[in-house]
């Protein structure tokens, strides 16, 4: 009869009912048919011990067929990842870095490239995906996610490696763990923290011969903070050529500072050690 036949018999559901999805829940009636009888909802809390025992047998029968028993969001994410792998939209980027960065960084980059795709198509899932990357790879993973989302791997690091593998090796270990080429403004950063970080990273970029430093903000509050800093510290920023890229619709702001001139004063209020960006 199969597991689904057993399940229908268990709830006295007509044999011919074409159920395609079964949801184990913890609310509602003991069972309920929805979506034109295609979905069967089973409230596990409403079952007595004997019924749970029968359902346990049916569930094991289901698992023995080799299928997954997944939490609903996990199932959606896994299906999306199978589809993503099938399309392999970022295989050339991963292929480029495969033998030149540590395996853990490559895995973090792989996850970050997926996150970047979601950033474009479904931004609501991004905070959880970013959290997962940081949980698995620490702050280094978080930096990789930021750098990847902003396009630094293909637009800067690839070119850097192609022009000088030695320079790439030297800078990679400054760029990835410390993110010296960019300040990513996030929601709980105070303006003073942002100013200090901008100044610190400008000094680091100059020290290591990187001719630019970028400031990134996503979301209304973060982009507003960046604009206010540019206005409040206009004298400081007047010493750099800057280009501003803004997409108001998406709430994205990026500021490129070209580091050809020295600023007259430090923007940071504290005298940080420029070799330790924190």
């Amino acid at each position, binding site marked *: 009869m*199969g*597991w*689904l*036949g057993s399940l229908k018999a268990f709830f006295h559901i007509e044999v011919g009912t*074409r*159920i*395609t*999805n*079964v*949801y*184990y*829940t*913890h*609310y509602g009636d003991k069972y309920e048919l929805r979506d034109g009888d295609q979905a069967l909802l089973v409230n*596990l*809390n409403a079952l007595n011990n004997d019924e*749970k025992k029968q*359902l*346990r047998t049916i*569930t*094991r029968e*289901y*698992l*023995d*067929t*080799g*299928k*997954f*028993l*997944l*939490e*609903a*969001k*996990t*199932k959606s*994410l*896994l299906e999306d*990842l*199978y589809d*993503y*792998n099938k399309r392999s939209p970022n295989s050339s980027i991963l292929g480029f870095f495969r033998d030149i960065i540590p395996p853990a960084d490559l*895995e973090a980059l*792989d*996850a970050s490239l*997926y*996150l970047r795709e979601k950033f474009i198509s479904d931004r609501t899932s991004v905070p*959880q*995906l970013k959290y*997962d*990357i940081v*949980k*698995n*790879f620490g702050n280094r993973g978080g930096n990789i996610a930021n750098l990847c989302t902003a396009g630094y791997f293909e637009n800067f690091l690839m070119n850097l490696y192609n022009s000088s593998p030695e320079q790439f090796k030297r800078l990679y270990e400054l760029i990835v763990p410390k993110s010296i080429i960019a300040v990513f403004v996030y929601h709980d950063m105070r303006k003073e923290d942002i100013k200090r970080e901008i100044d610190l990273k400008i000094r680091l970029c100059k020290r290591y011969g990187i001719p630019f430093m970028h400031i990134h903000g996503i979301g209304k509050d973060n982009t507003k903070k960046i604009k206010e800093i540019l206005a409040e510290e206009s004298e400081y920023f007047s010493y750099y050529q800057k280009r501003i890229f803004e997409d108001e619709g998406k709430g994205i702001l990026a500021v490129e500072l070209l580091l050809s001139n020295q600023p007259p004063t430090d923007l940071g209020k504290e005298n940080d050690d420029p070799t330790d960006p924190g």
Partner: protein
Amino acid sequence: MTMDEGAVIVFDKNARKEILDLLDKSVNDEGIIVEKEDPDVHVLAIDGTELTLDEFGGVKKGSEVFIKSDLVSLMRLARR
């Protein structure tokens, strides 16, 4: 081909404890998934690490393969 072939079972996030109970597992005081009959034995995920109730995303193959719900674990699973 049976009529079962295309049908799947999924569960609500809030029903995770009940699912574990169906699979003869429980959760200890630290939130880690353990064998119901022997709580000293931690259940392991595919990568060989223990997993918490919060991390539990599901199972495969007769409840032998426990799956974490985070992006990195699922990317590894999708590549197997």
